[in-house]
C-alpha cells in the first residue's frame, strides 16, 4: 500500500498541528477526562487519514467523526442516564447549573435528540457555519436553523427548570 506523498504528509502535519488541540479541547468539554478526549480525537484523526486523499473538507469530516464518537462514548458509559438523574434530582436550594462547570449543560446536550444534538455541537461548539453544518449532516440549511433554535429552546427551558 503506497504511503501518502510528501506533499500530503506535510499537509496532514499542518492540519494536525492546527486542528488537533482545538478538536481535543472540544471533545474534552464533552467528556469527562483528558484521556478519553485524546482517544476520541486520535481515533477521529486515524479515520481521517485513512481517507485523506478522497476528502474535500477534512475539518468537517474529522469533527463529524468526533461527534459520532462522543455520542458513542456517552451511550457506552451510560452517562446520559446518570446525568439526567443528577439533573432531575437537583434541588431548589443548590442550583444545578454553575457557569464554571460544564457538567449540567453537557448532560442536557447529551439528552437532546440526535437530530438536534449534532447540529448544535457542530455549529455552536465546532464553529461551523449553517451552510457547512447543512452539508455535513445532509439536511437543508433552513432545517439546521430550526434545529438550532429548537435545541437552544430546549436547553434554556431545561436550565431554567433546573434553577427554579
Amino acid at each position, binding site marked *: 500500500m503506497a504511503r501518502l506523498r510528501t506533499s500530503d504528509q506535510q499537509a496532514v502535519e499542518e492540519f494536525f498541528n492546527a486542528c*488537533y488541540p482545538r478538536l481535543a*479541547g472540544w471533545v474534552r468539554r464533552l467528556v469527562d477526562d483528558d484521556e478519553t*478526549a485524546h482517544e476520541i480525537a486520535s481515533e477521529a484523526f486515524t479515520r481521517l487519514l*485513512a481517507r485523506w486523499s478522497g476528502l474535500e473538507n477534512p475539518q468537517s469530516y474529522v469533527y463529524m467523526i468526533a461527534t459520532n464518537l462522543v455520542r458513542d462514548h456517552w*451511550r457506552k458509559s451510560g452517562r446520559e442516564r446518570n446525568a439526567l438523574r443528577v439533573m432531575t434530582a437537583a434541588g431548589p436550594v443548590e442550583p444545578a447549573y454553575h457557569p464554571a462547570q460544564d457538567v449540567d449543560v453537557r448532560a442536557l446536550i447529551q439528552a437532546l435528540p440526535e437530530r438536534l444534538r449534532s447540529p448544535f455541537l457542530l455549529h455552536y461548539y465546532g464553529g461551523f457555519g449553517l451552510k457547512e453544518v447543512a452539508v455535513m449532516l445532509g439536511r437543508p440549511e433552513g432545517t439546521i436553523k430550526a434545529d438550532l433554535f429548537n435545541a437552544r429552546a430546549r436547553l434554556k427551558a431545561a436550565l431554567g427548570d433546573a434553577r427554579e
Partner: protein
Amino acid sequence: MSSTRDPVDDWLDTEVTPLSPPPGSLALIRQRARRRKTRQASFIAVGCAVVLAAAVATPQVISALSQPGHHSPPVAFGNSSPPPISTSPSPTTRPTPSQESNKATQIKQRTHLSTTSSGTVPPPHFLPTSVTFAGNGTGGVVGAVIGQAGPPCATSVCTSLAGTSNYGQTWYGVSAPVAPGPSGSSGVSQLRFASLRYGWAYGPALYETSHGGWPWQHQDTYGYRVIDLEASPARAFAVFGTCYGTGADYAASCSSFSLWTSVPGGKTWRQVSVPSADDQMKSTSSAAPLLVISGDDTGYLLTPSGEVLSGPATTAGGPWTAVGAAKCKPGPPSTSGQTAQPTAQLAAGPKLMLACDTPAANGHFIAAIYNSANGATWKQTGSLRVKGTPTSLTAASSASAASGVAALATTTGIKYSPDGGTSWQAATVAGNSPAGGFSYVGMTNASQGVAVPANASLGEVYVTNDGGKTWQASPITG
C-alpha cells in the same frame, strides 16, 4: 438588552481550552491509519488483480464482442470478471477525473439493468442473497439479484449482480459495487431498486447507483451499519444500526437504531425527524425495526418496542409520527432463520399486514395475521400454523380480491393467501422446498412474486406467476 443572561450563551461563551497532543501522537495516528487503509485496500486490490487477470485471459472473447451479430458473450462475475468493453460510454456514465485512474478496470464493468438484456451473462455459481423488483418505466418490471460469485472467483471481492427483464426466465450480468460480502461492518448483501436507474446495495455498508448498475458510489453512513432499506420511486428509507455482530451476522448485537432517508440519486442521507423517544431506538432482545413502504407512498416502521411510526415517502418527505401500537414486537433478526423466539413480519399491500408469530410444539409456529389501514388500529383477519420459523411476509393488491394476496415464507416452505390473510394454504414448490426454506418472499403484484432460498449455494431464486400458489426455481444463469 435583557439583564438576564442566557445560560446557554454563558456556556457557549466559555472558550474551548486547546488540548495539546501527547508526544508521538501524529506518528501513532499515521501508523494506525496506514494499517486501516491497508485492510480496506486489500479487498479492492485483490479484486482488481482478478479483473486484470480475467481481462488477459479472455482477449478472444472481448474482441469477438465487437463482431456484428454476436449476441451471447460470456461475461463475468460482478467485480471479478469483465463484461464487454463499451466503445462509446453514454454521457451519464462518463467517468469523472477522479475515476479516470480506475478506467482500466471500471470500463469493463459498465453494465446496467435493462428492459431487454445487458448483453452479458451472470457469473458462474452465483450465490443469491437478496432480490428486488421495480418498475421499468414502461409499465413492466425489472428485477435484480445480488450475491456472491462462486468459483472461479476466489477472492474476498466477489459481490455480483444479475438482472432480469422477464421475471426470472433469464438473467443477465450487471455491474456490482466493488465490495466484499458482508463481514462485520463492511461489505454488502442486500439490494433494492426504486426504478430501472436508481438502486442501493447495502447491509452493512451502503452503495448507490443512479444508472442501474455501473458506476456504484459508496455512501457515508457515519459509522452506522445499514440494517434495512426500502425505496419508493420518490424516496428511500434505511434503518441504521449501532451493531457489533461479526462476519455475516452484521445485524446482530445491535444496541440502537435510527431512521434515515435519501432521494433516488441523492449523495447523502439525513436522519428522519421522528418523535424524540424514537430518535435512537433502543434494541430490546436484539429486536430490529421492520420497515415497509405502501403503494400510496407512505412509509411505516415497527420499532423494537412495538410502536408504529409513519411518514411520507414522497419527494418532499417530512417528519414521521407515532400512529399506534402493533399487536406484537419485532423479534430478533435471524440470518439462519432458525429461532425459537417470537418473531414478527410486516408487509404493505392494500393495507398494512402484520404476522405475530408464537412458538408452538414440535417446531411449529402459530402466526396471527393482522391488518391495519394506517397502523393506528389492528384487526386480526386470520391465523395459520406453520412448520419451522416464519421469516418473511409480503402482500400485494389484487384486482380480483379487494383484500389483496399475501405470502408467508418460512424455514420449511411458503404459505399463500388469496384473500388478504384470511385463509392460508401451502404453496406448491416445484421439486419440493429447498432445505432451510426461504429467507425472503416478495409479491411484485397480484400474480408475480419472488422468494430467496435460505441456502444461497443453490444458486437460484424461486418465482411465482399465479399469486403464490406455485413456485418454480429460477437459476441465476444466462
